[in-house]
């Protein structure tokens, strides 16, 4: 069946983090309100869960510095490392919704089943992209769902809505590909992007 994937236009990402916050607002990921929660209660690192974020890499030397912006989220891989590493998921039965992590057959979206997940965090280690995030309140792992609740209505029909990040992208850099061709996986990937052959992520990049 068809895989939904991402097209990220690297030239157009302005590094504004609007995708990050639109996702947080859509999915109500914490922190919800003041006071800011901190990891380990030490007031240094805020404790939150982000399904999408923007990687900002600086390089170069004055007067020719450079900064690149790459928006990053779950890539709903063809061979998800999270699923493979999950003790409560069968990689040979990956579409089974009773897995703690499963991959939908109809559109390739990879989901973490919150009723089954026990928070072992293997997937955090396995994912090359950092998509799974540990929620310290639920003690489980969650991640980008490709806004499946926006894409489909309660009868399972496509709605015409897009994921919150795609909808809001200020630079017009982030797009959905309805029929992602895994041959294009990792095409034009930026420097230091994981080798696409590892998990065959459903993402390709555009330049120029």
């Amino acid at each position, binding site marked *: 069946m068809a895989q939904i994937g991402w097209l990220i236009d690297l030239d157009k990402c302005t590094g504004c983090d609007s995708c990050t916050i639109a996702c947080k607002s859509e999915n109500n990921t914490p*922190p919800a309100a*003041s006071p800011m929660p901190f990891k380990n*209660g030490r007031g240094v690192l805020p404790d939150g869960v982000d399904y999408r974020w923007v990687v900002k890499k600086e390089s170069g030397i004055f007067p020719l510095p450079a900064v690149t912006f790459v928006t990053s989220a779950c890539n709903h891989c063809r061979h998800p490392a999270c699923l493979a590493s999950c003790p409560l998921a069968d990689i040979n039965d990956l579409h089974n919704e009773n897995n703690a992590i499963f991959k939908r057959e109809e559109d390739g979206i990879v989901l973490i089943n919150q009723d089954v997940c026990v928070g072992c965090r293997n997937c955090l280690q396995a994912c090359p992209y950092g998509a799974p995030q540990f*929620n*310290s309140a639920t003690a489980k792992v969650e991640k980008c769902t490709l806004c499946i609740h926006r894409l489909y209505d309660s009868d399972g029909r496509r709605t015409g809505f897009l994921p919150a990040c795609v909808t809001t992208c200020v630079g017009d850099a982030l797009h959905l590909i309805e029929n992602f061709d895994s041959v294009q996986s990792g095409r034009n990937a930026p420097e230091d992007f994981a080798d696409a052959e590892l998990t065959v992520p459903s993402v390709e990049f555009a330049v120029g």
Partner: protein
Amino acid sequence: MPNQSTERLFSDKHAPRSAVVKERDGLTRVLSRQEAAARVKMYRFLAAVYLRPPNEHLLERVVDPDFLGELSSLFGVRAVTELSRFSATARPDQELASLRQEYMDLFAVPTGRYVTPFEDVYRGGGVGGEEGKPGKGPLMGKWAIAARRMYREAGAQKDESCTELPNHIGIELAFMDFLCAREAEAYSRGEGADPQSQERPESLGPAAYHLLQIRFLQEHLTAWFPELSVSIQANAKSRFYRWIAQITEEFLALDTAGLLSRSVVLAGLEKNPLDQDKVE
């Protein structure tokens, strides 16, 4: 007296079944209506305590030793300890001004020892805060939405003069007041106890209101009040508000348990009216 009537009911095994049921039903309704009416008063009082500052009448009553005795038989000694200590030292004329300021500091002004008495703040937070406690949530969110839905479903509309958010502790307690009041009315109307009734809300039976009460207590009030209580007790200077928090928590727990067991009873009576095993 209620006990006696109940005993008489349950001892009357050989009376014709329908007559027994009718009579028992009638008595149950009377008792239930009185009880519902009493619960109305309790919830109305509790709602008011969180919605506005205390007045001198309240202070006078709560320092009365007889009243304290009755309270302790109802709520247990611990719940009354704070109030006892408060009463021992309080003088209503002096205390009132500082209690009113305390009310404002706890419930009205955010730079004081403000406890943000809103359900979503306590339940909408998400990741860990200090020592693994959940972080705080926004003033309104999905719990306010859910509460408002229930208010509408139950046919309750907030009076215009009341200016608080739908998920404020006082409003949620006032909703229990409303549900108990409707329950009491339902007994007076002598309606059946059919929770599946499709009729207009004005004519819902008491069992339907029980269901709503249980739902609201379990899905809302008892899910967050214990944490609000911790916050009030940590921030309150005055024993008075610590006592209020304790008896609110106690009452909510008792009321929930009571409703649950009554549902069992009602269900049991329906199935087998004379089966005493099902009666607690």
